[in-house]
């Protein structure tokens, strides 16, 4: 179906604007219209995986650029994840001014779909900057219940300034890339893959890398993250933490690997060091947080550090694992934030010291949280494990054995902080002065269900994601891989990806 990919990007944005034109009271209608759009997007994406690209020329000078959208091997499942998470977030929406809220969420969906489906670097940069705006407005308009607009404003500024600084560097790097390469219509196009090797390469890569590292975020660029995740309303943070934070990692895979392999190899020690710091710092900080949302925020820092290291290992299996883990992390962190949002809505606090004993009265809520927490700590059979195993296998294979060993530490710590989170909220003696509320309603269940189903299915059989990503990773790392001890057994690497996938079964 021609035009479908473009429709997936522009459709939600247009519907978002149409919602603005609805009468002021049409809150419920707007919300369910938004849910329908997200559901339709999921159905269309899953139903048409082999849709051809859409491309319309844009600039001819000073460099070629096009409005070029298309599914890619890496982006396909991330987009499905995005649409599913947005569906869940929209179902879970409960706030004042739902019409505007839904409209902003749809604009966010469209803009982020644009980031992942853009096959032109300039278009990528366009949506990269665009996706900041709805998050900023959502944070300003609906940020944190009870904290007052002043505090939400601070977090919103921090989010905007950090990410826009990255976005502007990305823009400059894109312009320079266009001048050097002659065209920006290059993402996922093997014919255009040239390593930019001259003096410019290092600077252009630095621009991209800064944007990606800030977005992920990675230590020391992470300081915007805990405040943002803390202050954003839960449905939004589910999407931002679940998917928006993956845009940087995605950028390293589809832009870094094919064009800046040289610079990435040169930067590997530094980035791996940052990744390890993020891993350990995130994990141990999560262990010490009393704010439930911040536990998950810092665990995110830790998990994404692992993915970053995997990408910089240049190993096919590790990169396939990175993509699996990107999707898995998106699913369980969205589920975690949604469930924590429910807890906060009910008890009007998210402090682990104050909460306790909710599990007795709310078995369904406890069930949802335990599933998400187990997926996050990497329980075999759930999605987190599949990704972690592939990454660790790949790292070991690529000669990063020591790093793989260090990476085991936060995985163990993850078990500690996730169980601490669960026990702090659900177990223990009942707290007398906490309000008693009803258990998970069916609408709330409907919001979490697709995410839980997703990480169960992906945990049982990661092959659809891993296989696609593994082939793409071979194409991306292949030509630049220097002849060395690990370039030789290329065949067995592919096999090992599937062996790893099998072992999960």
């Amino acid at each position, binding site marked *: 179906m021609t035009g479908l990919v473009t429709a997936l990007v522009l459709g939600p944005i247009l519907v978002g604007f149409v919602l*603005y034109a609805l009468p002021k009271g049409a809150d419920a209608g707007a919300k369910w219209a938004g849910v329908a759009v997200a559901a339709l997007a999921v159905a269309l994406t899953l139903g048409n995986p082999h849709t051809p690209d859409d491309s*319309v*020329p*844009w*600039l*001819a*000078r*000073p*460099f070629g650029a096009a*409005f070029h959208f298309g599914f890619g091997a890496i982006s396909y499942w991330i987009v499905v994840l995005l649409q599913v998470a947005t569906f869940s977030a929209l179902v879970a929406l409960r706030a004042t*001014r739902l019409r*505007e809220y839904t409209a902003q969420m749809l604009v966010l969906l469209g803009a982020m779909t644009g980031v992942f489906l853009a096959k032109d670097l*300039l278009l990528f*940069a*366009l*949506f990269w*900057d*665009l996706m*900041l*705006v709805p998050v*900023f*407005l959502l944070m*300003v*308009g609906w940020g944190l219940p009870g904290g007052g*607009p002043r505090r939400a*404003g601070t977090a*919103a*500024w921090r989010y*905007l*300034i950090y990410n*826009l*600084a990255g976005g*502007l*560097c990305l*823009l*400059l790097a*894109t*312009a*320079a890339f*266009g*001048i050097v390469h002659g065209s920006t219509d290059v993402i996922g196009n093997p014919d255009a893959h040239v390593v930019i090797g001259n003096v410019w390469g290092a600077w252009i890569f630095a621009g991209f890398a800064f944007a990606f590292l800030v977005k992920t975020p990675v230590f020391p660029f992470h300081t915007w993250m805990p405040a943002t995740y803390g202050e954003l309303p839960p449905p939004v943070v589910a999407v931002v933490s679940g998917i928006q934070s993956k845009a940087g990692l995605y950028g390293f895979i589809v832009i870094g690997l094919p064009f800046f392999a040289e610079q990435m190899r040169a930067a590997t020690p530094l980035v791996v060091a940052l990744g390890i710091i993020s891993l350990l710092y995130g994990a141990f900080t999560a262990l010490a947080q009393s704010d439930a949302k911040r536990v998950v925020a810092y665990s995110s820092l830790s998990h994404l550090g692992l993915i970053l290291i995997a990408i910089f290992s240049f190993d096919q299996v590790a990169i396939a694992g990175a993509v699996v883990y990107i999707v898995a992390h998106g699913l369980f962190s969205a589920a975690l934030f949604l469930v924590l949002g429910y807890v906060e809505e009910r008890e009007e606090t998210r402090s682990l010291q104050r909460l306790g004993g909710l599990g007795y009265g709310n078995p369904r809520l406890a069930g949802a949280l335990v599933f998400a927490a187990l997926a996050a700590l990497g329980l075999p059979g759930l999605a987190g494990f599949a990704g972690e195993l592939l990454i660790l296998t790949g790292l070991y294979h690529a000669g990063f054995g020591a790093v793989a060993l260090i990476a085991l530490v936060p995985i163990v710590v993850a078990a500690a902080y996730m169980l601490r989170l669960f026990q702090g909220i659900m177990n223990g003696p009942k707290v007398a002065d906490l309000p008693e509320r009803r258990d998970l309603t069916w609408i709330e269940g409907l919001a979490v269900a697709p995410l839980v189903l997703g990480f169960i299915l992906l945990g049982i059989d990661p092959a659809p994601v891993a296989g696609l990503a593994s082939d793409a990773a071979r194409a991306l790392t292949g030509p630049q891989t220097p002849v060395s001890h690990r370039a030789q057994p290329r065949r067995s690497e592919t096999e090992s990806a599937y062996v790893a996938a099998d072992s999960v079964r």
Partner: protein
Amino acid sequence: MSPPIPYVNSADLHALLPTTVIAAAGLLALVVDLFMSAGRARRWIAVAIAAAGLVIAGVLTAQQYGHSYPAFGGAYMQGGFAVVLGEIAIFATLVSLGLGIGIGRDDQVAGTTAIVLWSTCGALLMAGAGNLMMIFLGLELLSLGLYCLCAMSVRSAARESGLKYLLLSSMASGFLLYGMALLFGGTGSVALAAISAAPPSPLIALGAGLFLVGIAFKLSLVPFHSWTPDVYEGAPLSVTAYMSVVTKAGALGVLGRFAYAALPPATANAILLPVWTVAAISMIVGNLAALQQIDMKRLLAYSGIGQVGYIVAAFAGQTPLGLRYAIFYLAAYTFMNLGAFAVVALMLKDADGSLGVGAFAGLAYRRPWLAAAMTFFLLSLAGLPPTAGFTGKILILASSVGAGYWWLSVLLIAGTAISVYVYFKIVRAMFVRVDEAHVRAERSTNPLPWISIAVCAAAVFVLGIYPLAPSDIIPLAK
């Protein structure tokens, strides 16, 4: 040496036809006003005559597209980028007059409208000027009108604004004139083309330097910018909107032609390097100063200083594409800036008043469409997608990187980062939930700015995603 002008032929007169029509419309508005009785209709009639003249002039200018002709022996270059700059000036005049339907009291409107039109004639002459005399003629015609317009209102701030503009602008004209005299002395000709052909001499360098100081003053580049915020703040809103675009269009036309055509290639880079430096300083200082502003007109004045810095940066390296991108960004700036002014006009009961940033608090919930429009224009001013500001900025970045001016592009990014804070302060105010009682909410009864907003928003969007290369729709000529 420019050849003597033996006679003026019809092609020469044809080149000036748009300017003539606008000037005549000004006269007509004055004459018709003599026969009008007092009342609000006077405003509408005067503005309607002006609008008719401007539209005709716009069509006539468009017809000159692609027909380059050196009229009056090269004094006025018809065609080329003068067409685009001319259209920008004409459009800005039209929008400015519509913001408050003319300027001043009912009995003043015919006069002020005529002055606005004649100032526009000056800008058109500047945009096409091919020799030093025409540049000065255009510049003074533009400025003389503005001195009156700035002082138009009865407020003392307006009178202060007019006087300040008169004094500082006259000084700038002095610099410009001295520079011109030196250039003439060094080359024996007033034609820009002849200057580039002359052998380099200290006289030319000094003359060009003084000339550029004068132009930088008119463009309000830092450090020649100090008059801008005060004048913008004191002048009536329509005049501020007018000045923010029309003077820039005229002065950029002069600067463009001077940088590309008049300077000898051997020394051009050395002479122009200070200009790029000044542009870079403007991007940073203009946006930094805008951070502290709480009055919308002052804020837009400082933001305009930064924006002009971006435009001038596109000239760096004097690449042919750079000229196109400068004009592209100027067009983008015209639409987004006038759009923002139109929003401000709709929030004022009296077009002569001033508006604080605080008035935007909660606007998204009181007047969602107005807030959406303002957000869109501010996104564009900040260089965020999907707007012309974004595309313009990427083109300027590409141009300056391609010409080897890395440092300019890095400073442009830094300036943009600062400007985001400036513009998003307003966006944030609009979307924060506030207590309605504390907001001074005014409304204008004039519906015309809505039309401007619609046109500007459409233009900002279309220029932002125009599917053909924007570089190809803007003609390139000396």
